[in-house]
């Protein structure tokens, strides 16, 4: 039987660090994805995720509703992300956002064809822009679903929304993203046709 968050929180408070390791393992993907969504393009996602877990551990005794550990951790993660962005603002002002950092790294390893790589990079950028254009409330569930492949149940634990709300949000968000992608594909096919003509 898998222990609930609540049980693990109580064990942590009693000084059981193994219980906290279980909580970290359970939420590391969600925390990382959240950090990546807010500040990842500057390459600080991992630092932020670690910092968030440490901050959560420090203030664990102040958690009033241990069954709400997920959404509490999300709040801490967003706060740590915001702090991180503010703290690094002077440095980041001079730096271009790097949406393709990891994509580029992957393409170097797995994609041999330069052309397909560039196309995939373009689509990658497009998808991120599309996600950012979604309503604020839709963004994090979409990121958690598609980046970390989390189940609706896990997402609802982390965002604090109900399972049905997540289902509705993802259904509408996916529709919007499809439309964006379709639009892009239409443009691409038009371009190809023009190239063929030329």
């Amino acid at each position: 039987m898998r222990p609930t968050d609540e049980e693990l929180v109580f064990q942590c408070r009693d000084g059981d660090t193994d219980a906290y390791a279980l909580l970290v393992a359970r939420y590391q993907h969600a925390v990382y994805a959240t950090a990546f969504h807010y500040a990842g393009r500057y390459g600080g996602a991992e630092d932020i995720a670690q910092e968030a877990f440490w901050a959560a551990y420090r203030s664990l005794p102040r958690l009033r509703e241990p069954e709400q550990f997920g959404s509490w951790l999300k709040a801490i993660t967003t706060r740590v992300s915001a702090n991180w962005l503010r703290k690094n603002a002077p440095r980041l002002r001079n730096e271009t956002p790097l949406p393709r950092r990891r994509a580029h790294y992957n393409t170097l390893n797995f994609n041999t064809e330069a052309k397909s790589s560039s196309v995939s990079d373009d689509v990658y950028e497009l998808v991120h822009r599309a996600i950012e254009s979604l309503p604020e409330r839709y963004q994090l569930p979409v990121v958690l679903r598609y980046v970390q492949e989390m189940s609706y149940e896990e997402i609802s634990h982390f965002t604090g929304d109900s399972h049905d709300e997540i289902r509705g949000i993802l259904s509408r968000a996916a529709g919007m993203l499809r439309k964006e992608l379709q639009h892009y594909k239409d443009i691409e096919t038009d371009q190809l046709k023009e190239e063929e003509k030329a």
Partner: protein
Amino acid sequence: MASCVQILGLLQAFLDDEIGSVERLLFEDHLHNCDACRHELKIARAANVQLFELLKEDRLQENLVPTVMAHLPEMDRKRSSNSHVIPPSKKRTWNKTFAALVPVLAPIILLVLGGLLWLYWPSIPQKDDDAVGLITYSNGPVRFGRAVDGILNEAKEKTLLVPDSFIKTGKDGRLLLGLSGPSHVSLYEDSSLYLISERKLLLEQGRIFVDVHPDTQEFLINTPHGVISALGTSFEVYTTSDNTEVTVVNGEVLVENETSFALLHQGNKALFSQRNRPKIERDVPAARCLEMARNVLPEVSAQRMFLTRFVPSTQETTRTRRQIFMVETKQRLVRAVELNWLPHPYSEGHAGYSVYVSDSSLNPLFKTHIPPSVFQDKTHTSINIDVPAEVQTHAENRLHIDLLPDYSTGQLDTSFTEVRAVGVRP
């Protein structure tokens, strides 16, 4: 049959494998018959796969658990609900509570003060210019009113008295009047007294004690049986329906009725009716009257009001009330001199006394001083002055004792009644 719109709402859940079993049956059944929806599903599935493919590159690459656990910080053991809220200090809360109460308290305090002012506002009758005295103490059933209209009110302390006032005490009633002069009149139970002026009273019945300030004007008390006139004395008058009894505590009192008169001295008691000759008793225990009068003492604030209003603040100091006594010693050695006096029942501010003792040919023997505190203590009526040992060597025939008040310590004289020599037999 579900509509295409409903079915498309289930599309994403179907792709994510988050669809319920009943919904799944409906969905699959619809797709079987609907080409459009089948097409939509195809596009959606492709898009879904594409999104997963693209975004999995952002996925967490390494396990964070070891790094997180390696540098786990100390847990904050302080169980405060929120780290950002500074717990308010108790002092501040107290001040705030007080500050919040100010608008409520201020009118209440003002109201109370106003009420107190109204309550304690001196109740002065309109014609207070002719007031001759005031009530300085009242206890028990005491009624008071103007003789002309006959309406009696309850007599309270600080009530001003005008000429032609009428005062009546019931059972256990006690009253003390201060009259300008100053004189004091105590009324005991079941007495009726008309105040004709500040120096003229009419005692219809009952018992009063009068203490008259020693000045030149005479003080008159009319009774149904005769007139009592006094000069600087204290005495008690007791009038019944048959006769009147006058007991002199201090000084001299003249008693007159229709046919006769009598001059009473200290310690004398006269009993007279309308026509008979006053029957005089000597050496009655007059101190008993004083004892009784001392039970009726003025209320402090009323007395203060009386003193400021009816007693001139600057008393004449020209009088030096020197008292001289001669004591027969009959050739005995004198160990001490005993001074007796009658304590003043009301007043404060006694003068101390200097005592000069000389022999029969007025050669000084010794002198001493009695502090005012001795007279202030109303329970004492005598003091022994020891004769110094060197003076005790030869016996005298007679001692001259000169008593001089020291007005620097107080304004009030003490009238000594008796000086005796306390001796040892040779």
